[in-house]
């Protein structure tokens, strides 16, 4: 039944390694990202998230 899949899976040597490597790369990337983001300081986060909300340096507040 799976002949149509086997044909392609077999023609590339060690094709299984691709999804494995991909998953591994992403997991490492994601875990490092999580740890680094977790370590951010609270005040800094607040400062950053308020960037769009200061008045853009506008001198005419009616705009």
């Amino acid at each position, binding site marked *: 039944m799976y002949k149509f899949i086997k044909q392609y899976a077999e023609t590339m040597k060690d094709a299984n390694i691709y999804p494995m490597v991909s998953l591994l790369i992403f997991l490492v990337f994601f875990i490092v990202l999580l740890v680094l983001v977790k370590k951010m300081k609270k005040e800094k986060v607040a400062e950053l998230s308020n960037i769009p909300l200061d008045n853009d*340096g506008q001198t005419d507040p009616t705009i």
Partner: protein
Amino acid sequence: MQVEKFYYDNRIVKNFAYATVIWGVVGMLAGLWVALQLVFPSLNITQYGSFGRLRPLHTNAVIFAFVGNGIFMGVYYSLQRLCKARMFSDKLSNIHFWGWQLIIVAAAITLPLGLSQGAEYAELIWPIDLAITIIWVVFGWNMFGTIIKRREKHLYVAIWFYIATLVTVAVLHLVRSGELPYTWLRSYTWYSGVQDALVQWWYGHNAVAFFLTTPYLGLMYYFLPKAANRPIYSYRLSIIHFWALIFLYIWAGPHHLLYTALPNWAQSLGVVFSLMLIFPSWGGMINGLLTLRGAWDRVRDDVILKFMVVAVTAYGMATLEGPMLSLKSVSAIAHYTDWIIAHVHVGALGWNGMLTFGVLYWLVPRIFKTQLYSKKIANTHFWLGTLGILFYAIPMYWAGFQQSSMWKQFTEAGQLKYTFLETVTYMRPFYAMRSLGGTLYLAGVVFMVYNLYKTVKSGKLVADEEAEAAPLAKDYTPHTGEHWHRWIERRPVQLMVMSMVVILIGGLIELVPTFLIKSNVPTISSVKPYTPLELQGRDIYVREGCYTCHSQMIRPFRSETERYGEYSKAGEFVYDHPFQWGSKRTGPDLAREGTGNLKKTDGWHFRHFREPSSMSEGSVMPSYPFLLENELDVSSLEAKINAMRKLGVPYEKDYEKRALTDLNMQSEEIARNLLSDSIRVSSKKEVIALIAYMQRLGADISKIKTATVNK
């Protein structure tokens, strides 16, 4: 520190805003028109107005003209303010604006003329591709110039999304546009068959990701806090959203090719990464919606927030549905049906459309220093838009399920229960309802045009808006142990490079093996290059956009092999530049049109092209009487054969010199066949070439029943 005075450029924002609105109306009108063509085929007026040519016009107009200008409008407004600096160069801004509009006009002229490369969302011909590249560089130059002379130390998350968009769209466009020109207007893609399919859906999927999604997420992260007047719910989440999204998106393309002749490992890779995409996507949606926590009462009164809430919700729905659709078992049902059309319109009408409208209503009164003319009209627009989406999507979902189950249904005796034509005529009421949804949505936009027009009239453009901010300290010394992301936030170039690395990892792992490893595409010895006449016919097939309704890819399901014949093999497409697998079956699959049970006489095809409903009653296919009139253009035949040979198609040495003789011989034979069927037609007409191509489809592997697979 001395505060500097400077001016924001609002004129360029205004220009892009106008372009967004105008092209939005044009793109949606084209959409409504093609929707109606499926209900009333007589609306296919002349060769320039047939469905196959107008449907690419609709998709290109909505993606690159409406959303494209929407992106630039939002970026030029927000980038200046987030950087506290005027755009780097007014000249570049103007070149960008007019260049982009010229590209759109060129597309609007060439597509109805049938100048197309036959790849979805990448139809535009090579000179336009070149122009897009130049204008994109201008945009990037202007953007980075602005970022570099900024007065705000940190790059707000919206800017990262803009940078990732810039970089990735450039990479996608360059790879997809790999093409070999053979005349000033026409070219063949470098890639063939399976490789072309993989490149196409890597591109197509990421056009959705990096043209319709990431830049709009940037807009969401800027304009939603602005409109709600509160910071984004979680800045930390936005960092994760950004990196995880751009990392994952680039891998997911192969989910468009499940159960096709694409190597299985690539299919699985696409599925896994598509599933993982739920998390960053929903992270982003939740981040957007929770920004309104404690302020939901305002959503009741504030029409701009209403638009944005529906937009973000539609983003969430579409990005949950996408990963679900990429599961193989779901794809088996949904692929080729109108379900996919529903899915993309939840994204386009809901996410892109509603967010664009919200931003327009927020921004136009501001740059014209006035108030929105009428909140009531805007509210009407909101409800028309929301209802329009529902009236559009629900019939299409229904149609998709229905279509798919009708295709797959067998009688007790084990035969297919419905002919393809029965499933087509069954769809017509749904297509009609969908047109109603589209009309409602467009009506809402007309209300918006009026409202914005009155708003603009009541104010005056603040072309140069005064602002002041302190310049960045040149001698900034980072304190020890500072956070990595603060480091990168100050360095746009590094941020760009890192985004590029992140997207290239996925791109390379996905694409390179298929290019390098020949055994990925097992060759089939009986598959031979097209004859000159078939090649010409194939070019007509591409020109007429037949791929917008017909697939050429039979999946290995009994319901498909019973209906169409042997499932498609990768090796059958090695000479196809471009591949024409298609993505939608408004009409039946054509992969085995020239062989087995499906084979028809030349006369049948002739009559069918002249008037499809005369052969298949109730068919919604356009008539092609002009193919019977137009003389086949053989002037570039030599160039075509040479180009194909350069791309690896094994035409013999000097074959181009004999090609015309062969072409004439084959076309005269078809004309004789037609004559014996009492059809008198000159062998020089285009229809002859197209018939030749139809009769060739799928014929190769039936020549040898047991196809030899060379490993």
